[in-house]
């Protein structure tokens, strides 16, 4: 929506930091190690972003995330450039959407190199799909307050809500796991 003069926006200088100028293929290639290397800043940023739901309040965390990513890619470029390029080439040419399954050989080579030089081990394949628990130093924001109306529609009783199942519970055996 349109922005009024009273809406506080950070200045251009505050927002200008060196960005991660890498392609989607490079992101996909380094994804697992990148996420592991920058796990703490990423968790902090995503928690902030989720709790406060305001990009202006999470700029410092976001800058840390980007700085960490740049640091990671610089280190990889310094020590494992050949392995990285080889793995990236395999990912690009094997499938249309950077699937990891067809590139296990080059992946193992890259993993060993990163482990030797950066000390980052590749996490298990579904590591980032698992829920994470993060202990942040930032104080917890107060819960959202909603106005109370006298003639509001009565909701479900509490015991009904407890029994309710989510839509995602119980996947069928013929579910291929497609995200969409």
């Amino acid at each position, binding site marked *: *929506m*349109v*922005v*009024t*003069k*009273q*809406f*506080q*926006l*950070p*200045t*251009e200088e505050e*927002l200008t*930091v060196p*960005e*991660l100028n890498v392609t*989607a293929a490079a*992101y*996909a290639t380094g*994804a*697992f190690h*990148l*996420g*592991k290397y*920058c796990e703490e*800043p*990423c968790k902090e*940023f*995503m928690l902030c*972003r989720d709790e406060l*739901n*305001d*990009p*202006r309040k*999470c*700029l410092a*965390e*976001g*800058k840390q*995330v*980007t700085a960490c*990513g740049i640091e990671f890619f610089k280190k990889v470029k310094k020590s494992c450039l050949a392995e990285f390029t080889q793995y990236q080439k395999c990912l690009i040419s094997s499938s249309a*959407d*950077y*699937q*990891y*399954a067809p590139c296990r050989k080059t992946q193992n080579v890259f993993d060993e190199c990163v482990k030797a030089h950066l000390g980052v081990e590749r996490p298990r*394949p*579904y*590591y*980032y*799909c698992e829920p994470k628990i993060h202990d942040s130093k930032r104080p917890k924001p107060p819960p959202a307050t909603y106005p109370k109306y006298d003639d509001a529609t009565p909701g479900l009783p509490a015991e009904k809500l407890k029994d309710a199942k989510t839509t995602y519970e119980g996947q069928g*055996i*013929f*579910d*291929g*796991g*497609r*995200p969409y």
Partner: protein
Amino acid sequence: MSTVTPPQDLPPPGGFGKVQYEKVPHKVVFNGNRLSVAIIASYVVGSVAYYFSCQRMKKIYLEKRSGRIAVQPFLLAERDRQVLKQMRKNRDAEENLMKDVPGWEVGTLYGTPVYNTVGENEWIGYDYDSYYAHTSPADRLEYQDAFLYL
């Protein structure tokens, strides 16, 4: 006057063969029972194969999604900064555009705000139309249906 008798059509020696007029039924390979068994077996084999195929595809997609989730913070951080930059640019552009209109206040319609219950400094998001409000239609169309490759 000589009488020449023309050759007469006669049956071959030994006579004609027997005329086949009875129905010859095909040899039955798939009778009803065998057909039923074959169809059911096909279903069973196909279902099992499909089950394993689903498990395989599930692993592939889960791993892919795991990688996407890992890079999500990096993309989001960059995107946030870009959106905030563009918000400021758009606000300045609107101010410059409407400076000659008397009574115009930036972000409102002659002083009437868009929302009454939303605070002045409250984040309510910034949608696509606002982001591309002051760009050329060509730039806008270029990214309108852009597919996110990651």
